[in-house]
């Protein structure tokens, strides 16, 4: 009798997990091609372009070559260990040029597996500070780097690590010394697979004020990408397994976040970009997590890509009170596989991927 009860509870639990997991897993066997205008790949990027940050002048910084092999090497393609971590720069205002590799400070050479990226522009000096999540062999770091445009190089300003950094994903710069950073899992190793399977909520979202790091949101299971609204009053957070974009009201200074709204996007969202000129949110998304997983285990297998735009239609103090969802770009994986980010600058789109190429599109329709 007791055994039957236990078996029944276990079955119910498994069914619930299977249902929740399958919703985001994706049923599209075919990714549809959908272009807003002429698109092309941007040379020479071929080994990933997971995240992209853009200055107000249209200078895009692309993090490339993330070596997923530190994250359960038996589950991913062996070639990931050969990837070289790089930062590329692409100029939207000189879009016919290729992306150019930026040289890294000495401490990061052979020690760079970049993930999420953000930047700060000093309006007076014009200095560009890059904040990059780095999966170093010894642990999770946020590197703060200063860009030298004449030499196209990055110099080290500061390296930050903390015991709360368990599996970093994306970073949001607040000022020269402080930032918000997300953990997408508790384990960095193969144990991380258990987390979505069992519904474990061991992730947190962290505020580092320059000296001290603290959790400002706890008990989550995948905090992925983070961005800031134009007026700094709202923080956007993506939750891929729940196919949602969450909107938090932010108290500047204390950096307390209070969940205000959830927008269901219908597929696994990856990185979010907040367009400062329109207030739109641009999301790199994965129509099929199943195909993405296959692509990561064998890079030659294509994974469909999708870009989603959320247009705010509400009032200034609550912009996403009403909204409209658009899908301006889709691909079957031939042009770009596994789109993780999309940034928009003056009717041009740059789309980055987890382990593949970059696409540049002109928006005509």
């Amino acid at each position, binding site marked *: 009798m007791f055994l039957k009860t236990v078996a029944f509870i276990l079955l119910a639990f498994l069914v619930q997990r299977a249902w929740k997991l399958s*919703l985001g897993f994706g*049923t*599209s*066997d*075919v990714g*549809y*091609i*959908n*272009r*807003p*205008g*002429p698109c092309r790949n941007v040379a020479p990027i071929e080994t990933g372009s997971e995240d992209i940050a853009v200055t107000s002048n249209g200078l895009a910084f692309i993090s490339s070559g993330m070596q997923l092999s530190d994250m359960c090497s038996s589950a991913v393609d062996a070639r990931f260990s050969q990837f070289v971590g790089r930062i590329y720069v692409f100029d939207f205002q000189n879009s016919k040029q290729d992306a150019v590799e930026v040289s890294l400070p000495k401490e990061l050479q052979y020690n760079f597996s970049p993930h999420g990226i953000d930047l700060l522009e000093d309006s007076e000096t014009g200095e560009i500070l890059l904040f990059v999540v780095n999966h170093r062999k010894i642990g999770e770091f946020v590197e703060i780097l200063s860009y030298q445009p004449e030499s196209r190089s990055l110099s080290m300003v500061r390296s930050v690590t903390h015991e709360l950094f368990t599996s970093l994903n994306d970073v949001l710069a607040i000022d020269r010394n402080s930032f918000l950073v997300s953990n997408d899992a508790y384990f960095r190793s193969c144990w991380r697979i258990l987390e979505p399977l069992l519904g474990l909520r061991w992730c947190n979202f962290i505020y580092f004020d320059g000296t001290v790091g603290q959790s400002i949101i706890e008990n989550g299971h995948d905090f992925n990408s983070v961005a800031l609204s134009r007026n700094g009053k709202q923080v956007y957070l993506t939750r891929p397994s729940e196919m949602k974009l969450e909107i938090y009201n932010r108290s500047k200074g204390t950096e307390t976040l209070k969940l205000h709204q959830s927008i269901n*996007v*219908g*597929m696994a969202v990856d990185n979010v970009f907040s367009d400062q000129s329109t207030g739109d949110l641009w999301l790199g998304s994965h*129509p099929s997590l199943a195909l993405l997983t296959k692509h990561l285990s064998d890079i030659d297998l294509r994974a469909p890509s999708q870009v*989603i735009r959320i247009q705010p239609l509400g009032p200034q103090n609550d912009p996403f009170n009403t909204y*409209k*969802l*658009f*899908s*301006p770009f*889709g691909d*079957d994986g031939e042009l770009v596989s596994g789109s993780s980010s999309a940034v928009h600058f003056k009717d041009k789109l740059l789309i980055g991927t987890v382990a593949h190429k970059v696409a540049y599109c002109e928006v*005509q*329709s």
Partner: protein
Amino acid sequence: MWWKIIILGISVVLAWRILGFVYFMGPHRTIHTHWPGPCRNLAPIRSGAEGIALSSLQGLAFISSGYKTADVTDERIKNSLARVFLFDFNKPDGDAKELELIGDVRLASPHGISLWEDKEGIQIFLVDHRLTEDTIEIEPPLSLRHTRTIYNPLFANLNDVIATGDSSFYVTNAASVRDGPLLTISFLLQLSTGSVVYYDGVTARQVAGNGKILNGITSSSDGRFIFVSYMVDEAIVVFRREGDGSLMRVQTISLSAILDNLFYDPATGDLLASCGIPIGFFTMITDYGHKAPSNLLRIRPLSGGRDNPFETYNIVELFADDGYLLSVSSSAALFQDKLLLGSVLEKAALCEIRYAND
């Protein structure tokens, strides 16, 4: 003891089938808006544009309107007028015009539509759910003169029609019964009772069977190939026409989308498939105001010889809408850089194609 096993076995099969039905309804499918250029609704169409037939020689589109099923409960749909509209692509800023129907016939629930054009003029073939299927002849400029009504016992539950001569055509049956509990069971369990029937001008015979829910049907311009929407299988089946009208299955084009009517573009050889999410349709028949998403896929043949043009192909999503412009799309017609789109129960839209995704 073995009774229990039999009952368990039947329950598992039933549960599997019903799960398949839930999957078919598409609660998990996601469509967000993107248009190929500026789009507008086409006045005065408010009660559906289920099927569109295009004369690509003249740029004239004939639109069937006023479709309804037996289980419609919203009065706005139940009482909608059954009509055929005309839209002239050569005057793209104009509205659609209602065509006057001359003759001793009253339309009830127009469904699929096709046309045959020769030097004698244009003939419209229209599926109407009055137990019958009609052929109607057009006489310019703005009226339809009824010629013939064709009924055959093989016309069980007609969906769409494609004309292949001035009195011959193929029709699709979505199922083998018209309505009632047997139809409901047929849909719930996704039984393969759909078929394709060929009428040669005198007699009718079934040329393809065992389809789950067969929907749209069209042909290539040279008439060599017939394309059929296999809704539940989410695919277009390509058939080659034999001399006697029978069909040879040549290719299955998998779309991963629930498709309705098809349009063959004579200019490029592309196929357009109007798609949607079934649960949207079933919600709309109880609430006319419900907005359900629509999308349009373009299947372009890449390689393949005369005997199988779609051997390889690519799929472009040319249009998608969250339902506010077009709710539950069912049909499309392309003429130069203009795209006409129809919905089962509500409006029609006209879009300009700014970037053709070539």
